[in-house]
């Protein structure tokens, strides 16, 4: 100190600081008081601090993937696929992973509620709520149509109880309306007309050599995305003709289109013309196309108008594109044509579906890759007209009680359907929803349903397949399974039809399981053992054989060219993303913060403008544009999309899209019309900073994503720079990863899995707009030069995470030794050592280190999801991927307990576990027999920025290009 006391620290300040430090030291966690609550009785099978796994099913979409729920101390902390399940095959998509955040959503309805009236929303007791609802139902009993139920499709027990309940109070079967606004009704209608089968086919893409998607976003959400991605990936990652080819047909190159080898960029709504043109090419050239069935010639008259030239003109594509597609399909059999999807679900969706099925039929795909007879047909969604009729009855005051079971017509349908207004005319609306969706906010009573992870039930996504929904934890709140609420009402009303076996849902569930078990056990088999085995593995999985399908002999009416669209404005191409699904994701922050893979936008909705249109409008990315249709107007931030055909705009599914759409229904199929609306655009003059992952506006390839081909099957090694330090040794293991870019579809399942496993914080839109998201693993999107005939560039995805370099640039610059190389080859980050200099991040060439600018917030009860095996980092600390070191330790611990070395495949990182296309392989590079070692030796293997000679533990396998 200087002694004079003027420039130095005052004595008083010195003592203050000293005192504060003492308090700090005294409050360190080691000294914090804590209570230990003794259990009354030991829980069987529970060892505190170790996980317990339960098998159950995902209910986020209708695909019904099996789930393994990992629980710790009574809380579910992670969802993973069930490796035995025939649908998901062990993987789980981004939305499935995020189902956990629905469970722990702070907004979840925590008990029965009465809404509206003078007091606003008030919590009521179950007795009061049930008696009030019961009284209203008793009053309406017997008057047909007075009590109606709008429900999501329920293929299992819940659906049966709903039907029995309505029947018991004297309502006709039409009183129950299964609501699925995105139902693939056109595909159903086409199957009915052509093959006499009113059902959705299943697709075996593993058997297909060529896949053509007509707007079907099958890698993102269409039909059964995890199953389809797995099947598709089976044929990828190969060099040569055995590799499965994918062609994307549609005006917008989305996530699925990005994986395509060819892009037939039709005008909006031109997909049907392409399919018909291909059909024409095939059947008129049948003398040159071998092996077409005899029915092919009979199809000529119906596609007469669609010669390739006319079809190409109608679709707005070159004739060569249609001919090339026809030629490829003729040569590469079997193939699979998929569609329609959300972007192609316009007025001609049924024609498109018929054309797709006919091409599949003449090529012999039906029965090989397109499989009928596997749809359980247990709860087919109602036609849109039935929903309209229900809304009309409500508006006319004919409905006295409306029950809503996970159906949100107000939020999911365009306002023109008048659902909101009709709700006002219903004396009593009762919602079983677990979240306050727009319809539930208008309900007088809410009887909140359990989350699927808290309840018993079952789902049947496939003929012969029953996935068992089993609770993995006790209900968090005062909720009740919706079917149980119906049973409680039945008890109250004395409905004896639902009394057997009792008014308890579990007894109904057990009875249903016993029926299935008896079927599986066979005559004289042990039914109880079969039931227990099924509940342990997660379901009854009987393999049903696909049905033989014949083309209806009745002559088909010729397809006709519709008049060219002449209305004002540009068509809106609707689309979904792997994170948005059906659009209702507000309660799940992971799905909002993880960016859309093609645009890298998170949190906010946007409108995609093709480059030419953006130039004509004078709008650039981030400018707020008013999109107006006859139905309404919304203001959306513009994103100038390089891979969008001129002459249309694209809007992701969600509330904004709904507000732009007219109340339109396709009479031919009973589908809601999502595509075909036309909009005019106007600049508002405002600009926002879009929360986007990439700071460079449009990253191009620059050698990050590499390609190989049959002619050049190896990625050349770069000239490596000199190293200053000796390479570290890895005496026991070197954990390593291989990522096959030819299989990666950019679906973001790995990213959400990483958030869940590693307690990665969600920072919110403001910090996201500053580029401060915390993802340890991100999907980088690169553009590649436009392929022949395509109006825009292609897209490549590259999962980027810590490369665990052997010569890591981050390590020598850390002044406090918080990051260092472990003997197992991990680039360790010790959070409690880190002082936040950020030198490591500055020196990291891959930019995979994330700095905590703020303390992370996990709003209660989302904190219950936190993985207890991973530190929750705090402000001022750098964090990064550790190859899920806690999972490595878990596997090592199990191996040591068993007295054996860790086997290949025993350590699976969260990202590798989630990947539907199995693009990520993790293992020990020191073990020459491991899968990852073999892949590291693959000629497609390369290191990103290999010239830096950082010796990463991650090997990327180059994408494959033909020729």
């Amino acid at each position, binding site marked *: 100190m200087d002694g004079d006391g003027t420039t*130095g620290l005052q004595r008083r300040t010195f003592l203050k600081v000293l005192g504060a430090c003492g308090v700090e030291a005294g409050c360190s966690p*080691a000294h914090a*008081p804590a209570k*230990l609550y003794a259990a009354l009785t030991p829980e069987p099978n529970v060892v505190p601090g170790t996980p317990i796994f339960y098998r159950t099913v995902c209910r986020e979409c209708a695909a019904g993937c099996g789930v393994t729920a990992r629980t710790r101390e009574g809380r579910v902390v992670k969802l993973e696929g069930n490796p035995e399940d025939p649908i998901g095959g062990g993987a789980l998509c981004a939305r499935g992973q995020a189902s956990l955040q629905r469970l722990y959503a702070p907004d979840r309805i925590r008990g029965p509620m009465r809404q509206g009236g003078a007091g606003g929303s008030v919590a009521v007791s179950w007795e009061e709520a049930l008696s009030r609802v019961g009284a209203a139902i008793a009053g309406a009993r017997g008057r047909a149509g007075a009590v109606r139920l709008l429900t999501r499709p329920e293929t299992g027990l819940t659906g049966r109880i709903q039907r029995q309940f309505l029947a018991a109070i004297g309502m006709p079967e039409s009183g129950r309306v299964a609501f699925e606004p995105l139902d693939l009704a056109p595909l159903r209608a086409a199957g009915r007309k052509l093959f006499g089968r009113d059902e959705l086919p299943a697709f075996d893409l593993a058997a297909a050599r060529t896949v053509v998607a007509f707007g079907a976003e099958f890698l993102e959400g269409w039909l059964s995305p995890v199953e389809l991605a797995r099947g598709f990936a089976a044929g990828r990652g190969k060099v040569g003709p055995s590799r499965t080819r994918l062609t994307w047909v549609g005006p917008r190159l989305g996530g699925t289109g990005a994986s395509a080898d060819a892009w037939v960029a039709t005008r909006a709504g031109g997909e049907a013309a392409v399919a018909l043109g291909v059909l024409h090419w095939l059947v008129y050239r049948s003398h040159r196309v071998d092996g077409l069935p005899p029915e092919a010639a009979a199809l000529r008259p119906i596609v007469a108008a669609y010669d390739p030239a006319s079809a190409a003109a109608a679709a707005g594509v070159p004739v060569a594109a249609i001919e090339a597609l026809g030629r490829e399909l003729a040569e590469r059999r079997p193939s699979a044509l998929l569609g329609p999807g959300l972007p192609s679900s316009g007025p001609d969706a049924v024609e498109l579906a018929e054309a797709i099925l006919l091409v599949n039929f003449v090529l012999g795909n039906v029965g090989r890759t397109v499989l009928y007879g596997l749809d359980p047909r247990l709860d087919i969604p109602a036609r849109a007209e039935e929903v309209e009729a229900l809304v009309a009855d409500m508006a006319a005051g004919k409905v006295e009680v409306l029950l809503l079971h996970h159906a949100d017509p107000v939020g999911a349908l365009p306002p023109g359907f008048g659902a909101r207004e009709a709700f006002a005319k219903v004396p009593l609306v009762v919602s079983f929803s677990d979240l306050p969706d727009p319809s539930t906010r208008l309900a007088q009573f809410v009887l909140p349903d359990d989350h699927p992870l808290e309840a018993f039930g079952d789902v049947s996504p496939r003929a012969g397949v029953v996935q068992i929904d089993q609770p993995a934890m006790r209900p968090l709140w005062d909720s009740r399974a919706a079917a149980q609420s119906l049973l409680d009402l039945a008890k109250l009303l004395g409905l004896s039809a639902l009394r057997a076996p009792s008014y308890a849902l579990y007894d109904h569930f057990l009875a249903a399981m016993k029926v299935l078990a008896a079927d599986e056990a066979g005559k004289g088999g042990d039914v109880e053992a079969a039931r227990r085995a099924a509940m342990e593995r997660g379901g009854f999985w009987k393999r049903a054989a696909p049905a033989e399908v014949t083309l209806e002999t009745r002559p088909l009416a010729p397809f006709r060219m519709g008049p060219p669209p002449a209305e004002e404005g540009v068509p809106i191409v609707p689309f979904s993303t792997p994170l948005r699904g059906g659009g209702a994701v507000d309660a799940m922050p992971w799905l909002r913060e993880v960016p859309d893979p093609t645009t890298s936008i998170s949190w906010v909705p946007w409108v995609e403008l093709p480059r030419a249109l953006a130039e004509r409008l004078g709008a650039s990315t981030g400018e707020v544009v008013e999109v107006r249709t006859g139905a309404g107007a919304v203001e959306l931030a513009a994103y100038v999309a390089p891979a969008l055909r001129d002459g249309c705009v694209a809007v992701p599914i969600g509330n904004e899209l709904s507000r732009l759409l007219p109340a339109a229904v396709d009479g031919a199929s009973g589908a809601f019309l999502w595509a075909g609306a036309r909009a005019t655009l106007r600049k508002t003059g405002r600009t926002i900073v879009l929360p986007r992952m990439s700071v460079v506006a449009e990253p191009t390839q620059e050698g990050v994503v590499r390609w190989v081909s049959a002619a050049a099957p190896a990625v050349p090694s770069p000239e490596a720079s000199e190293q200053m330090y000796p390479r570290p040794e890895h005496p026991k293991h070197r954990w390593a990863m291989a990522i096959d870019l030819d299989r990666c579809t950019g679906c973001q399942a790995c990213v959400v899995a990483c958030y869940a496993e590693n307690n990665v914080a969600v920072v919110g839109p403001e910090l996201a707009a500053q580029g401060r998201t915390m993802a340890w693993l991100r999907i980088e999107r690169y553009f590649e030069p436009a392929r022949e005939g395509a109006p825009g560039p292609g897209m490549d995805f590259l999962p980027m995470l810590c490369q665990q370099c052997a010569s890591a640039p981050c390590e020598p610059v850390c002044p406090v030794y918080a990051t260092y190389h472990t003997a197992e080859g991990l680039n360790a980050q010790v959070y409690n050592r880190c002082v936040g200099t950020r030198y490591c991040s500055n020196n990291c060439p891959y930019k995979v280190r994330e700095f905590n600018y703020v303390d992370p917030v996990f709003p209660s009860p989302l904190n219950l999801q936190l993985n207890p095996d991973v530190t929750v980092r705090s402000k001022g600390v750098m964090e990064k991927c*550790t190859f899920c070191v806690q999972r490595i330790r878990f596997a090592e611990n199990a191996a040591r307990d068993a007295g054996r070395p860790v086997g290949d495949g025993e350590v699976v990182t969260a990202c590798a576990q989630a990947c539907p296309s199995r693009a990520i392989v993790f293992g020990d590079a020191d073990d020459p027999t491991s899968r990852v070692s073999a892949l590291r030796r693959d000629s497609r293997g390369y290191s990103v920025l290999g010239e830096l000679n950082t010796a990463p533990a991650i090997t990327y396998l180059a994408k494959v290009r033909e020729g």
Partner: protein
Amino acid sequence: MRGLLAAVAAAGWVAACGAPPPRAPAQPIPFSHRLHAGQYRMGCTLCHAYAARGPVAGIPPTYRCYGCHKFVGTDKPAVQKVDAAFLAGQPLVWNRVYRLPDHVFFTHERHVAAGVSCQTCHGPVETVDVVAQVAPLTMGWCIDCHRQRNAPTDCLTCHK
């Protein structure tokens, strides 16, 4: 600035030298390890059942107490309190004696499997009536032992 650093350094010194004496928080039940583990020679894992199987040793469920004490020592007020709590379905709330910071991932299982006796860290529990924290539980203390026994000293062994 130099002065501030000096103050912080001084505070660290005060914290290090003024390390609290062994803490022995008061417990709701005057349970004696000397009696149970010493005099009656009950093994540690009889009550702390998970020590050899999992990260957490575990405190006994009240049923474990009641199993004996519905017959034994039922005249003692403390035992009556335990029995009453069990029969009333009320959990006993103990005060934690040993606690590691949240960023330390310790597992009993590996230490027991390596032959480290419970007393190495918890002291001669079987000789005392009131359990106190006898080890400092500082990182240096952990590392010293790891070095002596040739156990891993990699940061990621305990920090994740």
